[in-house]
């Protein structure tokens, strides 16, 4: 049994003292995961707080036979983001910033505006689930097992979504544009 599994087991028995170990291990990952979906520091902080409090209070519900602890934690985070957009923006199918209708007023951090505008022009061509899988795989660096457990889809299905996403991006983005973008980032 790994150290993490031991800590989780103890927490499930009610010995919560080592929960902060899990917090240290996952804080950055979860914060970034939420930030990539909201692009707003204040919102990401609020939602990250809610995720860890909820995880602490419900750790007894985590079932290791059903998947990885990390997937369970990311799923809580994803649901928090969906709830956030549902209540604040009255949007029911939004899993993140990218899915918002154009023209929607939303707070986001200006420092990343230029980057966001660039990437948005071709990410907009993707379906929401393609965007989500792409961001989780490339930005968050999550495994297909984690992605499949977070989205409650089969692993093979997630792989297929990602391969189609890459195919589409290759077809949609002219090589010339890519070269220009790359030069700008040098």
């Amino acid at each position, binding site marked *: 049994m790994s150290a993490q599994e031991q800590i989780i087991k103890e927490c499930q028995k009610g010995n919560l003292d080592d929960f902060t170990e899990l917090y240290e291990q996952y804080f950055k990952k979860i914060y970034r995961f939420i930030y990539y979906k909201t692009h707003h520091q204040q919102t990401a902080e609020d939602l990250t707080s809610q995720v860890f409090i909820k995880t602490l209070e*419900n750790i007894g519900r985590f*079932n290791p036979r059903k998947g990885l602890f990390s997937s369970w934690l990311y799923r809580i985070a994803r649901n928090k983001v969906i709830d956030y957009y549902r209540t604040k923006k009255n949007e029911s199918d939004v899993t993140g910033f990218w899915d918002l209708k154009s023209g929607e007023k939303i707070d986001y951090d200006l420092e990343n505006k230029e980057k966001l505008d660039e990437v948005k022009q071709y990410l907009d061509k993707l379906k929401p689930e393609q965007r989500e899988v792409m961001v989780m795989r490339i930005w968050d660096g999550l495994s297909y097992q984690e992605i499949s457990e977070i989205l409650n889809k089969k692993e093979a299905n997630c792989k297929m979504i*990602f391969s189609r996403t890459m195919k589409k991006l290759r077809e949609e983005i002219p090589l010339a544009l890519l*070269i220009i973008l790359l030069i700008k980032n040098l």
Partner: protein
Amino acid sequence: MNKEKIKEVLEELYLIDESLREYQVELEKIIEKLLAAKPDVEINEEFKQKLRRELLARIEEIKGQESVKLNKFMNIFNFSKLSYGLVGGILSLILVIGGVYYANQKGFLVGQPESGLGIKFSTTALSDEAFGSLRTETQAGAVSGELGTGGVGSAVAPGTGGGGPGGMPPEIATYRYLYKGEDLVLEQTQVEVLKRVKGQASSGIANLIKNMNLGMVDLSSFSNARLDSASFIDDRDFGYAVYVNFTEGSVSININYNMQSWREVLGVCFEPGCVRPEPLKESEIPSEERIIEIADSFIREYGINTDSYGQPESKRAFLIKELQRVQGTGGTYSPESVRIIYPLMINDRPVYDQWGNKFGLNVDINIRAMRVTGLYNLTTQDYQSSLYQAETDASKILAIAEKGGLNQPIYGRVSKTIDLEIGAPSLAYMKVLKYEQGQSDEFLTPALVFPIDSSQIEGMYTKENVVIPLAKDLLEEDNNTPVGR
């Protein structure tokens, strides 16, 4: 993501779609571009430390909730309403001292508190199917343990009573419950089962008293002392005897039979030559409102906490039926009590027993005395919860409902079958007892309650609902207990 990681992502891609390999250069650039576009995330260290402190505070809060349970238990009712006798006084003193000692340790005060001290519902979530199987190994055992209201009696055909003419056995009927509601759709794949946590209240007090030397015996010599139960007596006219079971986390109140005042008003008659009072007449039974008022007034007077219970319901109609039934039998027994049930409410839904009766706090009122004679099922409401697989096959549920529920008795000498209609179900909870190694666990599982239309039946038919639990585990084994074969 470095070059190597990008290569790994691409290799995975080629495993899915080999044709992509010929675009390797473009794909590499796309991934690089996507990575370059990744927002810069700066971690606010101050926020991280603040959240860490919040989590630590919440952990302490959760730990604290465990210790408050004892204090809550001590305040299930207001002891100060009772005038204690000598023995009861000593015991209650121990209880109160224990409570104050323990409370002060944790910063809570006994005897303050209206607010919530008492038996408020609390639950701790555990992992899925954490309680193992919910069934008693031989489910029939659970049935016999719960019998007492409604079950067997409801299967005796109307008007037959306890014996047939000329010593013939009574006519036995079975009932078939035919569903007349709309199509049943069960979409939920999991249900949250609750297990009542018992016995946590005793350890604090036990630790306190086990160090006492009472003169006759040194309690500290018992290495693993545990306070199991305590009882005390309200030593006055119409006083009560209170029994506190720390292991079970329950309190019951009965009349103090030693008091002459009770014996007189109830017509207790054991001595030779004593004449029993006339049986009650139907006209002497007060209205439903009046009966409930007596129960409510008792609960108010003794400060009993009913936070976890719903609006009271009286079994007045049952008393009237019972009076009518015994009138023609010529026996000496005559019922005199009405039961009031304050149904236990979980998540705003009532709890039922497996026989279809609402389960909760019971208050018995003797009509002759017009006084409360007993209070039962006042329990702590601390639960653990766990998700269990739910039954989604409506036909299976309806097949069990047709028989009247799980583990119904089967009669060997059935002379007829009576069809009854059951209507569309409502969602509630069902209390399930699991017996194992001489102990019982109490579970509450979400359940469907089908109301029985018994309007076409005359006589002593008492079953009101068919209750079917939704936890699949409980439906796996449906034992029908043979009776009278």
